[in-house]
């Protein structure tokens, strides 16, 4: 399979079944380009998170192919996995669950850099191996004061914790970040701030996003292109400017109706 220079991730006919035989992800194909944010919208249970786990190589796909740059993730060979661990990162829905409650913020934050010593992010030039300074720089990038480094997660608010997990995700300067409902567990006022932060970081770092949400408004705000997922299948795909086009699938219109109403 040929990969065009500009394509970061290509998924082709990806299918993931659960032991019950039900297909969580059914023949899904898509492309994520460089510097792009691809939105994935769907109700809970539509298979969004399972797809995210397949892309993160946390689950093996049953059928189909996932290519990250030139590496075939669906074959899950060790060398390739090691490669994507330095190029693909994730932010999950619940920041409290994504931080080990027994570790200080600095230890959770520095996990990717601590365990992948040879990564040299451009924004940590000169301070890469000064752990404290690198951590401060990362917190600054997500607009958090460095005093939180020695705190435990339960001392931070939900929004602050999510900023920490975002800082952790950008820390190794990945090519792709999977954002799986990153704002769903936060207050509305905090949601907007986090989304603006994510947008700013994307511009600054030139990273691609796969933004997953059940909230069409959020997806529309964040993404360049939008895919709609229903019962494991992609039922619609369009540029954000065509959201209100008459050609949209009935299910997309249904979601849009909820969004407007």
């Amino acid at each position, binding site marked *: 399979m040929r990969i065009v220079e500009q394509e970061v991730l290509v998924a082709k006919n990806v299918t993931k079944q659960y032991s019950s035989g039900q297909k969580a992800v059914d023949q899904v194909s898509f492309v994520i380009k460089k510097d792009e944010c691809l939105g994935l919208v769907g109700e809970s249970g539509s298979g969004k998170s399972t797809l995210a*786990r397949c892309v*993160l190589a*946390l689950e093996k796909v049953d059928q189909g192919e996932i290519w990250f740059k030139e590496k075939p993730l669906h074959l899950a060979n060790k060398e390739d996995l*090691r490669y994507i*661990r*330095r190029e*693909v*990162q*994730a932010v*999950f829905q*619940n920041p*409290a*669950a*994504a*931080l*080990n*409650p*027994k*570790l200080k913020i600095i230890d*959770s934050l520095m*996990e*990717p850099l601590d*365990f*992948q010593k040879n990564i040299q992010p451009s924004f940590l030039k000169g301070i890469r191996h000064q752990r404290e300074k690198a951590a401060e720089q990362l917190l600054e990038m997500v607009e958090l004061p460095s005093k939180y480094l020695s705190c*435990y*997660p*339960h001392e931070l608010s939900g929004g602050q914790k999510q900023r920490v*997990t975002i800082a*952790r995700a950008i820390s190794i300067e990945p090519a792709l970040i999977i954002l799986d409902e990153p704002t769903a567990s936060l207050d509305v006022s905090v949601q907007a701030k986090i989304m603006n932060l994510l947008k700013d970081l994307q511009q600054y770092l030139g990273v691609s996003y796969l933004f997953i949400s059940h909230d069409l408004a959020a997806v529309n705000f964040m993404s360049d292109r939008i895919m709609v997922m229903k019962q494991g299948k992609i039922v619609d795909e369009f540029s954000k400017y065509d959201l209100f086009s008459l050609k949209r699938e009935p299910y997309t219109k249904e979601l849009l109706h909820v969004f407007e109403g």
Partner: protein
Amino acid sequence: MINGFRITKPGILLLIGLFFITIIIAPYIAPFDPTDVKMGDRLKPISLEHFFGTDHLGRDVFSRILAGAQTTVGTSFLVLAISLLIGVPIGLVSGFVGGRLDRFLMRFVDAFMAFPDYIVAIILSGLLGPGIFNLVFAIVMVKWIGYARLARSTVLTEKQRDYILIAKVNGVGPMNILRRHMIPHVLGNVMVLATLDAGKIILMIASLSYIGLGAQPPIPEWGAMLNEAKAFFYNAPHLMLIPGLSIMVIVLIFNLVGDYLRDHYDVKNQNGGK
């Protein structure tokens, strides 16, 4: 310091401190040799010279209680330590590796679980014959199972947490995930169970010694002291009351500390966990 049935932090520290100091300095503050037989002084009542009187062989009961604390508590700590060293690694590996190994180990554990603790311990120490080390072995065989099961179930719940998935995404290998994310949680839970268990183990050692399966005379041990004293209960009831009360107090201390640790960890989980 004791607030209703709950105990506060300074109370706990004071209790633990007093307790360990007493145990450690016991042989130095004992006024008499706990095994020194003086037939002329037998069955003396409580007095200023003999705080807790003397037993049927004229040995000072106060000194024997102090020495017995070391035997009883020391033995229970030995039992705990061995149970932890066997149970925790088995549970960790079983839960973390999963699959066939897990099923095999858990069927083994189920087989042990099918019998009540005391029955297994009595049968084992009965078969092996009386003596402290046989007693330790018998109780360990009963106790390691609880730790294996707890370690396994903690690993199974932790495995599903988002921060474990993120650690994989971050390129942390399985051994480091175990060391960094699993073991601290497992040890936290295990310490709570161990403290609550310490009281039960002390009771078990004392009970088995009381029926003659544990510590043998002349080793001072509270259960064995109860056993020796029962023939003289009508003449010298303090010979039974004092070791009995000692057992009660020490079990109570361990239960209070265990309850405190359990509450302490619960609070932390509410704030920090899912």
